[in-house]
Protein backbone atom coordinates (compact mmCIF):
# COMPACT_ATOMS: atom_id res chain seq x y z
CA UNK A 1 0.00 0.00 0.00
CA UNK A 2 1.46 3.41 -1.01
CA UNK A 3 -0.70 5.95 0.77
CA UNK A 4 1.46 9.05 0.30
CA UNK A 5 -0.09 10.96 3.18
CA UNK A 6 0.34 8.05 5.63
CA UNK A 7 3.90 7.35 4.46
CA UNK A 8 4.72 11.07 4.82
CA UNK A 9 3.35 11.22 8.36
CA UNK A 10 5.14 8.00 9.36
CA UNK A 11 8.41 9.17 7.80
CA UNK A 12 8.20 12.39 9.75
CA UNK A 13 7.42 10.50 12.96
CA UNK A 14 10.33 8.17 12.35
CA UNK A 15 12.83 10.95 11.76
CA UNK A 16 11.50 12.96 14.69
CA UNK A 17 11.64 9.93 17.00
CA UNK A 18 15.19 8.96 16.03
CA UNK A 19 16.40 12.57 16.17
CA UNK A 20 14.85 13.17 19.60
CA UNK A 21 16.24 9.88 20.94
CA UNK A 22 19.67 10.69 19.48
CA UNK A 23 19.66 14.13 21.02
CA UNK A 24 19.23 12.62 24.47
CA UNK A 25 22.87 11.50 24.14
CA UNK A 26 24.47 14.30 22.12
CA UNK A 27 24.43 17.30 24.51
CA UNK A 28 26.25 15.47 27.29
CA UNK A 29 28.96 14.41 24.84
CA UNK A 30 29.40 17.98 23.56
CA UNK A 31 29.76 19.48 27.02
CA UNK A 32 31.34 16.71 29.04
CA UNK A 33 34.41 16.55 26.80
CA UNK A 34 35.32 20.16 27.58
CA UNK A 35 34.52 19.72 31.27
CA UNK A 36 36.83 16.68 31.32
CA UNK A 37 39.46 18.80 29.57
CA UNK A 38 39.10 21.46 32.30
CA UNK A 39 39.55 18.84 35.05
CA UNK A 40 42.56 17.34 33.34
CA UNK A 41 44.06 20.80 32.78
CA UNK A 42 44.08 21.31 36.56
CA UNK A 43 45.62 17.84 37.00
CA UNK A 44 48.41 18.58 34.53
CA UNK A 45 49.14 22.07 35.89
CA UNK A 46 48.95 21.21 39.61
CA UNK A 47 49.82 17.50 39.58
CA UNK A 48 47.08 16.75 42.15
CA UNK A 49 45.82 13.17 41.90
CA UNK A 50 42.23 14.11 42.76
CA UNK A 51 41.78 15.84 39.39
CA UNK A 52 42.97 12.74 37.56
CA UNK A 53 40.44 10.70 39.55
CA UNK A 54 37.77 13.21 38.64
CA UNK A 55 38.62 13.07 34.93
CA UNK A 56 38.64 9.27 34.99
CA UNK A 57 35.37 8.92 36.90
CA UNK A 58 33.39 11.43 34.82
CA UNK A 59 35.13 10.05 31.74
CA UNK A 60 33.64 6.64 32.50
CA UNK A 61 30.12 8.10 32.50
CA UNK A 62 30.96 10.02 29.34
CA UNK A 63 32.08 6.77 27.65
CA UNK A 64 28.70 5.11 28.25
CA UNK A 65 26.92 8.10 26.80
CA UNK A 66 29.30 8.45 23.86
CA UNK A 67 28.93 4.83 22.72
CA UNK A 68 25.13 4.97 22.71
CA UNK A 69 25.15 8.43 21.10
CA UNK A 70 27.17 7.20 18.12
CA UNK A 71 24.93 4.14 17.73
CA UNK A 72 21.74 6.22 17.62
CA UNK A 73 23.21 8.81 15.25
CA UNK A 74 24.09 6.38 12.47
CA UNK A 75 20.53 5.51 11.55
CA UNK A 76 19.54 9.12 11.00
CA UNK A 77 21.98 9.45 8.13
CA UNK A 78 20.65 6.27 6.54
CA UNK A 79 17.11 7.62 6.77
CA UNK A 80 17.97 10.40 4.33
CA UNK A 81 18.42 7.67 1.75
CA UNK A 82 15.69 5.24 2.76
CA UNK A 83 12.81 7.54 3.74
CA UNK A 84 13.75 10.89 2.18
CA UNK A 85 15.22 9.85 -1.15
CA UNK A 86 13.51 12.66 -3.10
CA UNK A 87 14.93 15.17 -0.67
CA UNK A 88 18.40 13.56 -0.96
CA UNK A 89 18.28 13.73 -4.75
CA UNK A 90 17.10 17.34 -4.65
CA UNK A 91 19.68 18.70 -2.18
CA UNK A 92 22.40 16.02 -2.34
CA UNK A 93 24.89 18.32 -4.04
CA UNK A 94 24.65 20.79 -1.16
CA UNK A 95 23.83 18.50 1.74
CA UNK A 96 26.29 15.71 0.93
CA UNK A 97 29.52 17.59 1.68
CA UNK A 98 28.71 18.72 5.25
CA UNK A 99 27.20 15.32 6.02
CA UNK A 100 30.30 13.52 4.76
CA UNK A 101 32.62 15.82 6.72
CA UNK A 102 30.45 15.25 9.80
CA UNK A 103 30.87 11.50 9.36
CA UNK A 104 34.63 11.83 8.97
CA UNK A 105 34.88 14.17 11.98
CA UNK A 106 32.73 11.89 14.15
CA UNK A 107 34.21 8.56 13.22
CA UNK A 108 37.78 9.35 12.33
CA UNK A 109 38.91 12.24 14.52
CA UNK A 110 36.61 11.84 17.50
CA UNK A 111 36.52 8.05 17.71
CA UNK A 112 40.27 7.65 17.24
CA UNK A 113 41.07 10.08 20.01
CA UNK A 114 38.34 8.71 22.28
CA UNK A 115 40.16 5.35 22.31
CA UNK A 116 43.43 7.03 23.19
CA UNK A 117 41.70 9.08 25.87
CA UNK A 118 40.16 6.06 27.61
CA UNK A 119 43.06 3.65 27.36
CA UNK A 120 46.04 5.98 27.23
CA UNK A 121 46.19 7.20 30.83
CA UNK A 122 49.15 5.04 31.77
CA UNK A 123 50.67 4.84 28.32
CA UNK A 124 51.57 8.46 27.60
CA UNK A 125 52.72 11.60 29.37
CA UNK A 126 50.25 13.91 31.12
CA UNK A 127 50.69 16.63 28.53
CA UNK A 128 50.07 14.29 25.62
CA UNK A 129 46.98 12.83 27.27
CA UNK A 130 45.63 16.32 27.90
CA UNK A 131 46.14 17.16 24.24
CA UNK A 132 44.20 14.01 23.31
CA UNK A 133 41.32 15.03 25.61
CA UNK A 134 41.17 18.45 23.95
CA UNK A 135 41.15 16.75 20.54
CA UNK A 136 38.17 14.61 21.61
CA UNK A 137 36.35 17.75 22.76
CA UNK A 138 37.16 19.56 19.55
CA UNK A 139 36.28 16.54 17.40
CA UNK A 140 32.88 15.99 18.99
CA UNK A 141 31.96 19.66 18.68
CA UNK A 142 33.26 19.92 15.11
CA UNK A 143 31.20 16.92 14.06
CA UNK A 144 28.18 18.70 15.54
CA UNK A 145 29.20 21.81 13.59
CA UNK A 146 28.88 20.08 10.22
CA UNK A 147 25.53 18.46 10.86
CA UNK A 148 24.24 21.81 12.14
CA UNK A 149 25.51 23.53 8.99
CA UNK A 150 23.50 20.97 7.00
CA UNK A 151 20.46 21.60 9.21
CA UNK A 152 20.85 25.36 8.86
CA UNK A 153 20.73 25.00 5.10
CA UNK A 154 17.30 23.45 5.55
CA UNK A 155 16.21 26.35 7.75
CA UNK A 156 17.69 29.15 5.69
CA UNK A 157 19.13 28.03 2.33
CA UNK A 158 22.36 29.81 1.42
CA UNK A 159 25.09 29.14 -1.11
CA UNK A 160 23.01 27.10 -3.56
CA UNK A 161 20.79 27.59 -6.59
CA UNK A 162 18.29 25.40 -8.43
CA UNK A 163 19.50 24.12 -11.79
CA UNK A 164 16.60 23.38 -14.17
CA UNK A 165 18.90 21.22 -16.30
CA UNK A 166 19.54 18.73 -13.47
CA UNK A 167 16.34 19.46 -11.54
CA UNK A 168 18.17 19.82 -8.23
CA UNK A 169 19.82 22.37 -5.97
CA UNK A 170 23.51 22.85 -6.65
CA UNK A 171 26.18 24.35 -4.46
CA UNK A 172 27.38 27.78 -5.60
CA UNK A 173 29.36 28.92 -2.57
CA UNK A 174 30.71 26.67 0.16
CA UNK A 175 31.68 29.67 2.28
CA UNK A 176 28.14 31.09 2.06
CA UNK A 177 26.92 27.70 3.27
CA UNK A 178 29.21 27.43 6.29
CA UNK A 179 29.17 31.10 7.25
CA UNK A 180 25.40 31.64 7.06
CA UNK A 181 24.17 33.51 10.13
CA UNK A 182 21.75 30.71 10.93
CA UNK A 183 24.52 28.07 10.86
CA UNK A 184 26.77 30.12 13.11
CA UNK A 185 24.17 30.98 15.72
CA UNK A 186 22.68 27.48 15.66
CA UNK A 187 26.05 25.80 16.16
CA UNK A 188 27.10 28.00 19.07
CA UNK A 189 23.64 27.79 20.69
CA UNK A 190 23.57 23.98 20.42
CA UNK A 191 27.16 23.41 21.43
CA UNK A 192 26.91 25.60 24.52
CA UNK A 193 23.57 24.00 25.43
CA UNK A 194 25.65 20.83 25.65
CA UNK A 195 28.00 22.55 28.10
CA UNK A 196 25.04 23.42 30.31
CA UNK A 197 23.79 19.82 30.11
CA UNK A 198 27.19 18.51 31.25
CA UNK A 199 27.32 21.10 34.04
CA UNK A 200 23.88 20.15 35.36
CA UNK A 201 24.74 16.44 35.10
CA UNK A 202 28.01 16.74 37.03
CA UNK A 203 26.56 19.20 39.56
CA UNK A 204 23.54 16.94 40.14
CA UNK A 205 25.57 13.81 40.82
CA UNK A 206 28.17 15.70 42.88
CA UNK A 207 25.36 17.23 44.94
CA UNK A 208 23.95 13.75 45.53
CA UNK A 209 27.37 12.54 46.77
CA UNK A 210 27.81 15.53 49.07
CA UNK A 211 24.38 15.00 50.63
CA UNK A 212 25.45 11.45 51.52
CA UNK A 213 28.91 12.52 52.59
CA UNK A 214 30.48 10.26 49.97
CA UNK A 215 33.56 11.05 47.88
CA UNK A 216 33.56 14.56 49.35
CA UNK A 217 36.86 15.73 47.89
CA UNK A 218 35.89 14.67 44.39
CA UNK A 219 32.30 15.91 44.72
CA UNK A 220 33.21 19.37 46.07
CA UNK A 221 35.68 20.03 43.28
CA UNK A 222 33.43 18.59 40.59
CA UNK A 223 30.50 20.68 41.83
CA UNK A 224 32.57 23.88 41.87
CA UNK A 225 33.96 23.32 38.39
CA UNK A 226 30.60 22.26 36.96
CA UNK A 227 28.61 25.23 38.25
CA UNK A 228 31.27 27.70 37.10
CA UNK A 229 31.36 26.00 33.72
CA UNK A 230 27.57 26.00 33.59
CA UNK A 231 26.80 29.54 34.71
CA UNK A 232 28.86 31.13 31.93
CA UNK A 233 27.57 28.59 29.42
CA UNK A 234 23.96 29.40 30.45
CA UNK A 235 24.51 33.09 29.76
CA UNK A 236 25.95 32.09 26.37
CA UNK A 237 23.01 29.82 25.52
CA UNK A 238 20.47 32.52 26.34
CA UNK A 239 22.39 35.17 24.35
CA UNK A 240 22.71 32.88 21.34
CA UNK A 241 19.06 31.81 21.67
CA UNK A 242 18.14 35.47 21.37
CA UNK A 243 20.40 35.85 18.31
CA UNK A 244 18.97 32.72 16.72
CA UNK A 245 15.43 33.97 17.35
CA UNK A 246 16.31 37.23 15.62
CA UNK A 247 17.89 35.43 12.62
CA UNK A 248 15.12 32.83 12.28
CA UNK A 249 12.44 35.45 12.86
CA UNK A 250 13.63 37.30 9.75
CA UNK A 251 14.24 34.18 7.68
CA UNK A 252 11.09 32.26 8.67
CA UNK A 253 8.17 34.58 9.47
CA UNK A 254 5.77 31.62 9.70
CA UNK A 255 7.85 30.05 12.48
CA UNK A 256 8.02 33.35 14.35
CA UNK A 257 4.25 33.84 14.08
CA UNK A 258 3.76 30.30 15.43
CA UNK A 259 6.27 30.73 18.26
CA UNK A 260 4.42 33.84 19.41
CA UNK A 261 0.89 32.65 18.58
CA UNK A 262 0.43 35.87 16.62
CA UNK A 263 -2.61 35.37 14.44
CA UNK A 264 -3.19 38.97 13.38
CA UNK A 265 -0.70 41.57 12.21
CA UNK A 266 -0.90 44.53 14.55
CA UNK A 267 0.76 47.94 14.59
CA UNK A 268 4.07 47.98 16.48
CA UNK A 269 5.14 47.69 19.22
CA UNK A 270 3.22 44.47 19.91
CA UNK A 271 3.01 42.56 23.18
CA UNK A 272 4.65 39.25 24.09
CA UNK A 273 2.30 36.35 24.87
CA UNK A 274 3.60 34.87 28.12
CA UNK A 275 0.78 32.34 28.24
CA UNK A 276 -1.71 31.52 25.51
CA UNK A 277 -3.99 28.71 24.43
CA UNK A 278 -3.84 28.92 20.65
CA UNK A 279 -6.50 27.29 18.50
CA UNK A 280 -5.13 26.37 15.07
CA UNK A 281 -8.62 25.66 13.77
CA UNK A 282 -10.11 28.99 14.80
CA UNK A 283 -6.84 30.90 14.16
CA UNK A 284 -7.03 32.78 17.45
CA UNK A 285 -5.93 32.47 21.05
CA UNK A 286 -8.67 31.15 23.31
CA UNK A 287 -6.89 32.81 26.23
CA UNK A 288 -3.71 34.82 26.60
CA UNK A 289 -1.66 36.87 29.06
CA UNK A 290 0.58 39.49 27.47
CA UNK A 291 3.44 41.76 28.43
CA UNK A 292 2.65 44.88 26.39
CA UNK A 293 5.14 46.23 23.81
CA UNK A 294 7.80 43.58 24.52
CA UNK A 295 7.78 41.38 21.40
CA UNK A 296 8.71 44.01 18.79
CA UNK A 297 12.03 45.07 20.38
CA UNK A 298 12.75 41.44 21.28
CA UNK A 299 12.61 40.11 17.73
CA UNK A 300 13.29 43.18 15.58
CA UNK A 301 15.62 45.27 17.81
CA UNK A 302 13.39 48.26 17.01
CA UNK A 303 10.11 49.68 18.32
CA UNK A 304 8.47 50.38 14.96
CA UNK A 305 9.03 47.34 12.72
CA UNK A 306 5.89 45.44 11.81
CA UNK A 307 5.96 41.73 12.71
CA UNK A 308 3.85 39.74 10.27
CA UNK A 309 1.17 37.67 11.95
CA UNK A 310 -0.36 34.46 10.57
CA UNK A 311 -2.83 36.45 8.42
CA UNK A 312 -0.03 38.36 6.68
CA UNK A 313 2.16 35.24 6.25
CA UNK A 314 -0.74 33.45 4.57
CA UNK A 315 -1.46 36.44 2.34
CA UNK A 316 2.17 36.65 1.21
CA UNK A 317 2.29 32.87 0.65
CA UNK A 318 -0.70 33.11 -1.68
CA UNK A 319 1.00 35.84 -3.72
CA UNK A 320 4.16 33.73 -3.96
CA UNK A 321 2.19 30.61 -4.99
CA UNK A 322 0.59 32.54 -7.87
CA UNK A 323 3.98 33.90 -8.87
CA UNK A 324 5.62 30.47 -8.66
CA UNK A 325 3.14 28.65 -10.94
CA UNK A 326 4.82 29.81 -14.21
CA UNK A 327 8.16 28.52 -12.87
CA UNK A 328 6.79 25.02 -12.20
CA UNK A 329 4.94 24.93 -15.55
CA UNK A 330 8.19 25.99 -17.27
CA UNK A 331 10.01 23.18 -15.46
CA UNK A 332 7.55 20.64 -16.84
CA UNK A 333 8.23 21.98 -20.35
CA UNK A 334 11.99 21.91 -19.74
CA UNK A 335 11.90 18.33 -18.51
CA UNK A 336 10.45 17.33 -21.90
CA UNK A 337 12.52 19.77 -23.95
CA UNK A 338 15.66 21.08 -22.17
CA UNK A 339 16.53 23.37 -25.11
CA UNK A 340 13.31 25.41 -24.87
CA UNK A 341 14.68 28.93 -24.27
CA UNK A 342 11.27 30.51 -23.73
CA UNK A 343 10.53 28.06 -20.94
CA UNK A 344 13.96 28.68 -19.44
CA UNK A 345 13.37 32.45 -19.46
CA UNK A 346 9.95 31.93 -17.88
CA UNK A 347 11.52 29.74 -15.20
CA UNK A 348 14.24 32.31 -14.44
CA UNK A 349 11.66 35.09 -14.07
CA UNK A 350 9.66 33.17 -11.43
CA UNK A 351 12.36 30.95 -9.91
CA UNK A 352 12.32 32.59 -6.47
CA UNK A 353 8.74 31.42 -5.84
CA UNK A 354 9.03 27.92 -7.32
CA UNK A 355 8.86 26.27 -3.88
CA UNK A 356 5.49 27.86 -3.08
CA UNK A 357 3.99 26.54 -6.31
CA UNK A 358 5.37 23.09 -5.51
CA UNK A 359 3.64 23.33 -2.14
CA UNK A 360 0.41 24.35 -3.87
CA UNK A 361 0.67 21.33 -6.17
CA UNK A 362 -0.20 19.08 -3.26
CA UNK A 363 -3.63 20.73 -3.01
CA UNK A 364 -4.03 21.44 -6.73
CA UNK A 365 -2.26 18.79 -8.83
CA UNK A 366 -3.26 20.67 -12.01
CA UNK A 367 -1.59 24.07 -11.64
CA UNK A 368 -3.45 25.45 -14.66
CA UNK A 369 -6.78 25.13 -12.85
CA UNK A 370 -6.24 26.27 -9.28
CA UNK A 371 -9.35 27.38 -7.38
CA UNK A 372 -9.46 30.02 -4.59
CA UNK A 373 -10.22 27.17 -2.16
CA UNK A 374 -6.98 25.43 -3.22
CA UNK A 375 -5.00 28.60 -2.55
CA UNK A 376 -6.72 28.96 0.80
CA UNK A 377 -5.89 25.40 1.87
CA UNK A 378 -2.29 25.66 0.67
CA UNK A 379 -1.82 29.01 2.44
CA UNK A 380 -3.16 27.50 5.68
CA UNK A 381 -0.60 24.70 5.31
CA UNK A 382 2.24 27.26 5.36
CA UNK A 383 1.59 27.79 9.07
CA UNK A 384 3.19 25.10 11.27
CA UNK A 385 1.59 23.59 14.38
CA UNK A 386 1.13 26.70 16.54
CA UNK A 387 0.21 25.19 19.96
CA UNK A 388 3.16 22.74 19.94
CA UNK A 389 5.69 25.36 18.82
CA UNK A 390 4.33 28.05 21.15
CA UNK A 391 4.59 25.82 24.22
CA UNK A 392 7.84 24.07 23.27
CA UNK A 393 9.47 27.47 22.95
CA UNK A 394 8.24 28.57 26.37
CA UNK A 395 9.31 25.31 28.01
CA UNK A 396 12.81 25.75 26.54
CA UNK A 397 13.10 29.37 27.66
CA UNK A 398 11.73 28.68 31.14
CA UNK A 399 14.11 25.72 31.60
CA UNK A 400 17.02 27.90 30.45
CA UNK A 401 16.29 30.62 32.99
CA UNK A 402 15.67 28.13 35.83
CA UNK A 403 19.09 26.59 35.13
CA UNK A 404 20.78 29.99 34.99
CA UNK A 405 19.14 30.93 38.30
CA UNK A 406 20.21 27.69 39.97
CA UNK A 407 23.74 27.79 38.57
CA UNK A 408 24.10 31.43 39.63
CA UNK A 409 23.15 30.66 43.24
CA UNK A 410 25.22 27.47 43.25
CA UNK A 411 28.27 29.33 41.94
CA UNK A 412 27.90 32.00 44.63
CA UNK A 413 27.63 29.39 47.41
CA UNK A 414 30.41 27.26 45.99
CA UNK A 415 32.82 30.17 45.59
CA UNK A 416 32.25 31.00 49.27
CA UNK A 417 33.02 27.35 50.00
CA UNK A 418 29.68 27.03 51.81
CA UNK A 419 27.88 24.76 49.43
CA UNK A 420 27.98 21.80 51.86
CA UNK A 421 26.00 23.88 54.37
CA UNK A 422 23.26 24.68 51.83
CA UNK A 423 21.66 21.26 51.83
CA UNK A 424 18.56 22.48 50.00
CA UNK A 425 20.80 23.49 47.11
CA UNK A 426 22.33 20.02 46.99
CA UNK A 427 18.92 18.33 47.32
CA UNK A 428 17.61 20.19 44.27
CA UNK A 429 20.67 19.41 42.11
CA UNK A 430 19.90 15.79 41.08
CA UNK A 431 16.28 16.68 40.30
CA UNK A 432 17.46 19.34 37.85
CA UNK A 433 19.46 16.87 35.73
CA UNK A 434 16.50 16.26 33.33
CA UNK A 435 15.98 20.01 32.81
CA UNK A 436 18.67 20.61 30.12
CA UNK A 437 17.48 17.53 28.24
CA UNK A 438 13.91 18.84 28.27
CA UNK A 439 15.16 22.23 27.06
CA UNK A 440 17.19 20.65 24.23
CA UNK A 441 14.32 18.47 23.04
CA UNK A 442 11.88 21.39 23.20
CA UNK A 443 14.35 23.52 21.24
CA UNK A 444 14.55 20.96 18.45
CA UNK A 445 10.76 20.72 18.34
CA UNK A 446 10.60 24.49 17.80
CA UNK A 447 13.32 24.39 15.13
CA UNK A 448 12.08 21.40 13.17
CA UNK A 449 8.31 21.57 13.56
CA UNK A 450 8.55 25.32 13.00
CA UNK A 451 10.17 24.68 9.60
CA UNK A 452 7.13 22.73 8.34
CA UNK A 453 5.71 22.36 5.72
CA UNK A 454 9.21 22.58 4.21
CA UNK A 455 12.27 20.37 4.25
CA UNK A 456 14.24 23.24 2.70
CA UNK A 457 12.48 26.41 3.78
CA UNK A 458 10.63 28.10 0.94
CA UNK A 459 12.22 25.83 -1.68
CA UNK A 460 11.26 22.19 -1.20
CA UNK A 461 7.98 21.17 0.48
CA UNK A 462 8.06 18.17 2.81
CA UNK A 463 5.37 16.32 0.85
CA UNK A 464 7.69 16.16 -2.19
CA UNK A 465 10.72 14.98 -0.21
CA UNK A 466 9.53 11.60 0.94
CA UNK A 467 10.33 8.17 -0.55
CA UNK A 468 7.67 5.87 -1.97
CA UNK A 469 7.89 3.29 0.80
CA UNK A 470 4.98 1.07 1.77
CA UNK A 471 2.96 1.84 4.89
CA UNK A 472 3.79 -1.61 6.30
CA UNK A 473 7.54 -0.97 5.95
CA UNK A 474 7.21 2.39 7.66
CA UNK A 475 5.14 1.03 10.56
CA UNK A 476 7.53 -1.89 11.05
CA UNK A 477 10.70 0.23 10.94
CA UNK A 478 9.22 2.95 13.20
CA UNK A 479 8.18 0.36 15.78
CA UNK A 480 11.62 -1.24 15.52
CA UNK A 481 13.42 2.07 16.08
CA UNK A 482 11.24 2.97 19.05
CA UNK A 483 11.82 -0.43 20.66
CA UNK A 484 15.57 -0.52 20.05
CA UNK A 485 16.15 3.09 21.05
CA UNK A 486 14.02 2.69 24.17
CA UNK A 487 16.24 -0.28 25.02
CA UNK A 488 19.31 1.95 24.48
CA UNK A 489 17.89 4.55 26.87
CA UNK A 490 17.17 1.83 29.45
CA UNK A 491 20.74 0.48 29.09
CA UNK A 492 22.19 3.97 29.44
CA UNK A 493 20.08 4.71 32.53
CA UNK A 494 20.98 1.35 34.10
CA UNK A 495 24.72 1.79 33.49
CA UNK A 496 24.71 5.41 34.64
CA UNK A 497 22.88 4.60 37.88
CA UNK A 498 25.13 1.59 38.45
CA UNK A 499 28.39 3.51 38.04
CA UNK A 500 27.14 6.57 39.93
CA UNK A 501 26.08 4.42 42.91
CA UNK A 502 29.37 2.58 42.72
CA UNK A 503 31.23 5.90 42.65
CA UNK A 504 34.83 6.59 41.80
CA UNK A 505 37.71 4.41 42.93
CA UNK A 506 37.52 4.76 46.74
CA UNK A 507 41.21 4.09 47.22
CA UNK A 508 42.29 7.03 45.15
CA UNK A 509 39.66 9.62 46.10
CA UNK A 510 39.62 8.85 49.78
CA UNK A 511 43.24 9.90 49.85
CA UNK A 512 44.15 13.51 50.62
CA UNK A 513 43.71 15.94 47.77
CA UNK A 514 47.43 16.10 47.06
Amino acid sequence: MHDLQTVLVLSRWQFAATALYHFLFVPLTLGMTFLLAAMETVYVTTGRQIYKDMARFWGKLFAINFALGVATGLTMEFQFGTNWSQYSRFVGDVFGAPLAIEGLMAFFLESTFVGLMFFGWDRMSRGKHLLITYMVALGSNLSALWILIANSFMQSPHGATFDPATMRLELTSFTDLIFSHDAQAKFVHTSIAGYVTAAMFVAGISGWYMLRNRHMELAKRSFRMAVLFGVFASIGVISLGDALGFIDGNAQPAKLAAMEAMWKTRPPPVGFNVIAFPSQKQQRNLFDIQIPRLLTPLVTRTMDTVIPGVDEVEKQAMVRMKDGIPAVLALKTLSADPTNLAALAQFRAHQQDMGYALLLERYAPDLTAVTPADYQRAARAVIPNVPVIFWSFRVMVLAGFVMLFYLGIATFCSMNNKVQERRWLLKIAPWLIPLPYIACEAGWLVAEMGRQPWTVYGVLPTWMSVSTQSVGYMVFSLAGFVLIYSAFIAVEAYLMFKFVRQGPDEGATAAPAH
Partner: protein
Amino acid sequence: MIVLRMLLYLVISLVTLFLVILLGQRGAWYFAWVLGTVMIVLIAAAGGALLDAQEEAKQSGR
Protein backbone atom coordinates in the same frame (compact mmCIF):
# COMPACT_ATOMS: atom_id res chain seq x y z
CA MET B 1 62.90 25.50 27.80
CA ILE B 2 62.08 29.22 27.88
CA VAL B 3 62.70 29.44 24.14
CA LEU B 4 60.32 26.52 23.54
CA ARG B 5 57.68 28.12 25.71
CA MET B 6 58.08 31.41 23.85
CA LEU B 7 57.73 29.55 20.56
CA LEU B 8 54.55 27.88 21.81
CA TYR B 9 53.07 31.26 22.78
CA LEU B 10 54.09 32.64 19.41
CA VAL B 11 52.31 29.80 17.61
CA ILE B 12 49.20 30.32 19.75
CA SER B 13 49.28 34.05 18.94
CA LEU B 14 49.65 33.36 15.22
CA VAL B 15 46.78 30.84 15.24
CA THR B 16 44.62 33.37 17.11
CA LEU B 17 45.47 36.12 14.62
CA PHE B 18 44.76 33.75 11.74
CA LEU B 19 41.38 32.88 13.26
CA VAL B 20 40.57 36.55 13.82
CA ILE B 21 41.34 37.38 10.20
CA LEU B 22 39.61 34.27 8.84
CA LEU B 23 36.51 34.42 11.01
CA GLY B 24 36.41 38.09 11.99
CA GLN B 25 34.59 39.32 8.91
CA ARG B 26 32.16 36.48 8.23
CA GLY B 27 32.24 34.14 11.18
CA ALA B 28 31.90 36.31 14.25
CA TRP B 29 29.80 33.75 16.13
CA TYR B 30 32.29 30.97 15.38
CA PHE B 31 35.07 33.13 16.74
CA ALA B 32 32.95 33.92 19.79
CA TRP B 33 32.55 30.16 20.33
CA VAL B 34 36.32 29.61 20.22
CA LEU B 35 36.99 32.45 22.67
CA GLY B 36 34.02 31.63 24.89
CA THR B 37 34.87 27.93 25.14
CA VAL B 38 38.50 28.64 26.04
CA MET B 39 37.32 31.16 28.63
CA ILE B 40 34.72 28.81 30.16
CA VAL B 41 37.21 25.91 30.37
CA LEU B 42 39.87 28.10 31.97
CA ILE B 43 37.42 29.65 34.45
CA ALA B 44 36.20 26.18 35.48
CA ALA B 45 39.81 25.02 35.86
CA ALA B 46 40.69 28.11 37.89
CA GLY B 47 37.65 27.49 40.11
CA GLY B 48 38.96 24.02 40.95
CA ALA B 49 42.45 25.33 41.72
CA LEU B 50 40.97 28.12 43.84
CA LEU B 51 39.06 25.58 45.92
CA ASP B 52 42.35 23.86 46.72
CA ALA B 53 43.78 27.18 47.86
CA GLN B 54 40.69 27.89 50.01
CA GLU B 55 40.91 24.44 51.62
CA GLU B 56 44.60 24.89 52.37
CA ALA B 57 43.94 28.32 53.88
CA LYS B 58 41.16 26.84 56.03
CA GLN B 59 43.39 24.02 57.23
CA SER B 60 46.24 26.36 58.10
CA GLY B 61 43.79 28.62 60.00
CA ARG B 62 44.29 31.67 57.80
